[in-house]
């Protein structure tokens, strides 16, 4: 979908796009797996929000509930040999590649069994066997790294690609534009996925940029792009697949702008009403009507391929997994203090 004059229009209007997801021609089994993945991510994050509120989790968690369709839709076209990067709000990115709920929980709790062996926390996730190179807490920091990882794939003669998720806030950082230009000039197989949730930590995009469609930066760098309703998993999947196919066949970078909204505030369980400039109760209520999980459920139910009973069963199974993973993570050990010193250099050369 293109956008006019680089303004998102209806895509950014929360009173629009409340309709069921159109699933014509999609495989029901596949759709159910997409639904299950999205619901898993949602319930995991709701669990983290609750535990953070209770004080069980010691450090901050950046939750992306509401944005599940982006990572789930994109990941359908990815494989474990791709090189996927995230940032501070990346739970969905790693879980959509099949990352372990227990590994995520243990990391958030600082346990040795966590995805970063307990040394990172929520913003610091690594799951290389699933292609998830990692997330880091610095906004836009990994955009150039993903470009390099994609370039390495090209130079090594594979058709793997680099992928980086970042937001409409990150796109204001200089290194993003350096990376876009480099990626285009060197024809790097990399997909830039912009989760445009209209907010940086607290400021609405209209207070930060003259237009709200960040795809204008792709156009400026002559990079193939698409803009989609990021709360429609089918639309995300189809657009990502097209762009990724181009990259895999040697046609350089792609840029996917997925318009979405986060249901929690910038950090932890709060909703940030009034903290976020132009984040109102009314907007939040409207965005909840565009919930990607609810809309997929409606689409499948209307088509007669899924029912409320099936959804309840699915939810019960996920909750059981979550409870087990959480209980295990709470029993796991903390990292030993000796590991603080021995991983800075490959061979420790002490002065």
């Amino acid at each position, binding site marked *: 979908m293109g956008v006019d004059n680089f303004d998102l229009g209806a895509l950014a209007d929360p009173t629009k796009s409340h309709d069921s997801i159109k699933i014509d021609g999609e495989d029901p089994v596949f759709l159910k797996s997409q639904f299950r993945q999205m619901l898993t991510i949602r319930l995991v994050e709701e669990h983290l929000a609750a535990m953070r509120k209770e004080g069980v989790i010691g450090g901050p968690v950046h939750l992306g509930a509401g944005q599940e369709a982006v990572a789930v839709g994109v990941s359908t076209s990815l494989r474990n040999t791709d*090189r996927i990067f995230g940032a501070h709000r990346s739970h969905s990115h790693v879980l959509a590649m099949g990352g372990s709920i227990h590994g995520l929980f243990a990391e958030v709790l600082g346990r040795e069994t966590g995805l*970063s*062996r307990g*040394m*990172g926390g929520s913003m*610091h996730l*690594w799951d*290389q066997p699933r292609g998830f*190179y*990692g997330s*880091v807490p*610095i906004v836009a*920091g*990994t*955009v*150039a*790294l*993903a*470009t*390099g*990882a*994609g*370039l*390495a*794939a090209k*130079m*090594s003669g594979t058709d793997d690609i*680099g992928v980086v998720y970042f937001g409409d806030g990150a796109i204001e950082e*200089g*290194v993003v534009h*350096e*990376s876009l*230009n*480099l990626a285009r*000039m*060197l024809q790097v197989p990399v997909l830039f996925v912009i989760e445009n949730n209209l907010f940086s930590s607290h400021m609405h995009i209209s207070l930060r940029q003259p237009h709200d469609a960040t795809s204008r930066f792709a156009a400026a760098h002559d990079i193939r792009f698409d803009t989609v309703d990021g709360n429609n998993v089918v639309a995300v999947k189809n657009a990502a697949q097209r762009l990724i196919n181009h990259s895999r066949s040697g046609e350089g970078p792609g840029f996917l702008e997925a318009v979405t909204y986060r249901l929690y505030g910038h950090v932890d369980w709060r909703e940030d009403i009034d903290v976020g400039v132009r984040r109102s109760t009314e907007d939040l209520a409207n965005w909840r009507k565009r919930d990607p999980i609810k809309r997929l459920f409606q689409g499948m139910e209307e088509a007669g391929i899924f029912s409320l009973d099936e959804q309840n069963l699915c939810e019960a199974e996920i909750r059981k997994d979550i409870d087990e993973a959480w209980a295990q993570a709470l029993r796991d050990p903390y990292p030993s203090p000796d*590991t603080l010193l021995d*991983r*800075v*250099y*490959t*061979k420790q*050369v*002490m*002065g």
Partner: protein
Amino acid sequence: MNKSNLVQAVNEALHFELEKNPDMILLGEDIGRDGGVFRATDGLIDIFGENRVVDTPLSESGIVGVAIGMAAYGLIPVVEIQFMGFLYGAMEQLLSHAARLRNRTRGRYTCPIVVRAPYGGGIHAPELHSESTEALFVHTPGLKVVVPSTPAEAKGLLLSSIRDPDPVLFLEPAKIYRAIKEEVPEGEYLIPLGQARILTEGKDVTLITWGAMLHPVLKAADRLAAEGVEAEIIDLRTLSPFDSETLLQSVSKTGRAVIIHEAPRSCGLGAEISALLCEEALYSLEAPVLRVTGFDIPFPLPKTEKYYLPDVDQIVETIEAAVGY
């Protein structure tokens, strides 16, 4: 054996390793078709092609970040930044990512990149073209910092830096790019990182320096030798992590130390070395550890740089003060 200057030695090292290691890639501004601002990569694109000698846009942060991503996936990128002062645009990538990749992934990834940059004053260049801010990077755990002082040293240290699994900032003293010619071993030639070099042994005072400053230090030591002062001259060459053992052994013998660097004085690497000697060699010291350094100012413009850079007279005076204490 060929006689080469420092910039030729760098070119020879890059050429040798590009031939030997198909995973090695050069990246930088003007390094390919043009051959580099100081000609360090001259001719390499003709031999190895534009896929291995990659001309990039003007994007220091982008270049270093791309190199980190390549390194994480098995390539060996060697980046040229045109001047050390241009590296500041890439600080975020160097400090937040290159230096931390290994620690952040708990050892699952390493970051075998080399970032080469001409550094230091004495070349009559404008602001940001004469920087000597190596202490910023020495203060960054996870980075290694290497500075050669002669052509042969440049070749041996650069090859070791390229083969090191950790990120190395390789600072080439621009003032002596072409000032000295010496025999540079052909082919494989490695100087281990983390080991200082003792140029002359002596019993009266230890002189600790690196890079272009080695040369006025040698002259100062010559002058004092005529007066009977036997100086032990140490070229630190790996600034991080540095060879404290060699420094402590030397000072335990001489009882006196003078550190000479062109970087600003406050929190320069000289301050750290001085602290080390005071902590670990106090009972050997017969005089305060003294420093000859630049001033705490941005590097001055061409016509006044001679007032900024430590010179032979200053070095001689300071050594005399240490010896005569």
